[in-house]
């Protein structure tokens, strides 16, 4: 299969990658762009570790083909902090122990980030739904939800 050249943006920067069109976005991000925050936990959409934000929506990057990314805007965890300053989500995850081994964390943060993009003041129910596709084996998810609430404008812990 002939390689194709894809033009899209990643974390606010223009990217141009020449690769097999049916490679997954997960593989492309890790192998061609060295964006290692994106993790492979199952490679088939069951665990959420590979979730990134594509054109404003959370997607499992293991289920998106490289070719389908043409013209899209991708955000990975590497793009969450701006100019070295942590996003409120990142700060709250740290302060509230919303992670332990950290392997699910990038996907988890991307799901939470996508939620806030579309819903800046979510309820706990909405947060729980936003992360229902992110498996975590270390925590009870409680701290994740608290961290999202705490990170929102005027948000406070229940």
């Amino acid at each position, binding site marked *: 299969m002939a390689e194709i050249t894809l033009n899209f943006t990643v974390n606010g920067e223009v990217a141009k990658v020449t690769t097999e069109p049916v490679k997954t976005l997960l593989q492309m991000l890790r192998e061609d762009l060295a964006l*290692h925050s994106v993790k492979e936990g199952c490679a088939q959409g069951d665990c959420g570790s590979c979730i990134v934000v594509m054109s404003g929506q959370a997607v499992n990057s293991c289920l998106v083909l490289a070719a389908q990314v043409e013209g899209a805007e991708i955000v990975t965890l590497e793009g969450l902090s701006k100019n070295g300053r942590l996003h409120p989500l990142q700060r709250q995850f740290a302060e509230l122990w919303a992670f332990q081994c950290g392997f699910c964390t990038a996907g988890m943060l991307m799901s939470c980030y996508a939620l806030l993009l579309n819903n800046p003041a979510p309820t706990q129910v909405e947060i729980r739904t936003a992360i229902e596709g992110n498996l975590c*084996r270390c925590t009870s998810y409680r701290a994740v939800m608290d961290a999202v609430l705490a990170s929102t404008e005027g948000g406070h812990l229940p």
Partner: protein
Amino acid sequence: MTKMEIVGKPTEALGSEDILTGKARYCGDLTFPGMLVGKLLYSAHPHARIKKLDISAALAMPGVVTVLTHQDIPGKNNFLYALDDQPILVSQFARYQGDALVALAAEDKNSAQAALKAIQVEYEPLPGVYDALEAMKPGSIQVWPDRSNLYDRLVIEHGDIQAGFDAAEVLIEHTYHTPLIEHAFLEPECAVSLVDWDGTIIVYSPGQSPHRDRHQIARALAIPEAKVRVIYPTIGGAFGGKDELHVQIHAALLAQATGRPVMLERTREESIRTHVKRHPIQVRYRTGATREGKITAIHVEAIGDTGPYVNAGAEVMSVLAATVFGPYVVPNAHIEASTVLTNNPICGAMRGFGIPQGQFATELQMDALAREVNLDPLDIRLLNGLETGDTLPTGARLRQAGGMKGCLLEAAEMAGWAERQQTEDRPAPHLRRGWGMASIIFTTGLGRNVPDSAGAGLDMATDGSVLLRTAASDMGQGAHTVLAQIAAEALGVELSAVKVTQPDTHRATSAGASAGSRTTFVSGNAVLDAAKPIRETLLQIAAEETGLPVELLSLRSGRVYADDEQLSLSVADLAGQAGQQNRRLHAEGFYTMEYPEPLPEGEYPYAHGTFTFATQIARVLVDIETGEVMVEEVIAVQDAGKVINPGGALGQVEGGCAMGIGYALMEELVVNQGRTINNSLESYLIPTAKDIPQIRARLLEFPEPYAPYGSKGIGEASLTPTAPAITNAVADALGLPIRQIPLTAERVLAAIDSL
């Protein structure tokens, strides 16, 4: 004791910024120039003779650099745990579905995959034995030609069992079953190996015991251990499943054979298929008690299916045996624990190490006893509960057991246990509400007469910053943060001044395994041991600098104090001085788990000496038409001895409950004739955010003698009470007990039908 600056304060996890910004490097993120992709070929059958293995086609494929079989292993072709029974690459017989036949390395994933497919194997499938009870019968198919399927049968006896049962006015006997469980750490197994410029074989991998890994790698590659270097990158969860080697030796063999870096990753399906699991265990439990509910004797028979290779099987069963009496005074006991070989998936270490399985039975048995003698579940546990100074059926005397009744009463208070009858037990025609509790004992450390020690190194630089060199593995449980806190407190520096090295056999001495909830205790004490001479030197220099007596001086958060007055002198100043004066500011610490009291004659020689206690209470709703169980709330109270990091510790308790909810309600690896059927995270279900209710957790502190600051292990005890508490709650809701987990809707409905 002086007020503490760092120990006991909520502390952000070390390395959190790296993880939260995506900079942290897990094994699969490592890249080296010229790195090859390694893959393993696993047996197509759970039990088969390998008649013919032809790798020639694979070798000839484009991109393939090397293809190895058992003949290519320079040293020992086996892993080494309890026995050296498991081959690294099968020569004649595959004995479970995860046995590897071939290791290959290619330039890229596609070439490696294609080459795997080109390997030609001729199997002679053999009949296997897939049930532990069948395996124990005479005439059963033998897993091994030269040894019994009953690999080990441990018996622990205490007191006079006959007299104990003679004195019993009430007898309860039941059999309990727990299933085969998958760890489901989010990071599948991986290893990257390369040959360093000086010929050292480096292996990066997630693991729990780098020196033990090194030993096994070295003996397989037939090179000295000192020429092998094992380094742990950031680890994506383990829970005991990475305690044993997975693909490290294979990766090292490939690196050694090719001279190039090799990355060997397992897919999720391969991971579920191959790595060790939690033992499925059947426990037959007979309890004798007085009519008032006081236990007089127990007779317990536990049977664990360990698969064909012993791995940690006998140890798991022995730890079960050494705790299955629960947190209760049991004057007479006969406990048998059998480790049985089959051709099912291998079982080994998993969070709890036999104790969750055993005390699932114990706690259901206590509720059964409570019903029989008409006592409240809380009262029967208070009646029989252990106290400081009591002796266990293993012969160990409890140095500190305040946590047993302490946690029990606190949990009952938090849950409103005494008022629970006031809650609506039938909130809808098809719903039943139930309350259940479980109270457990857990061990810290590995047991008497078992090697249980750790080294740790502390190096203070001339600017007062500190390198903490530990081989203890942080798998997400926060071990490195806790050890750094201990070091910072002991040296009187700020936490930010302490840098913890990644576990590295070239940098730190062995810490033993990060297992058995022992890391804080044993490695923590090793850190304290290393800190002592450094602190003494610093104080000595301070005394010389200030002219004040040493007794007046202290070090806190990087500054020097005389009594409580802060001086202008900093620890960095002292460190700088030390360098000028040829004074040593580095030390190696070492600690061995202590057993200061002799074990009474005739008692269990491997008894533990340090124990922790926990109680959990669950409130559930059962839909009696569908059988679905919904957990409304879990109360979890646990004795941590001393909480070093409240933030991390709470996470460990909540996370343990979450895993326990999965164990109770939805987790089971289904095996059919030795093959796991649900090999993916779509079909092996662990709890999502929608499956975990509110968990109210509290940590109590009953300081443990000999422990660093009195602390003891948290991470396994937190998982142990959850499933029995939920199961007892379901029994309460339905008015009948179910003695097997998981409590799937179908299983619960079948129980309801039988009413």
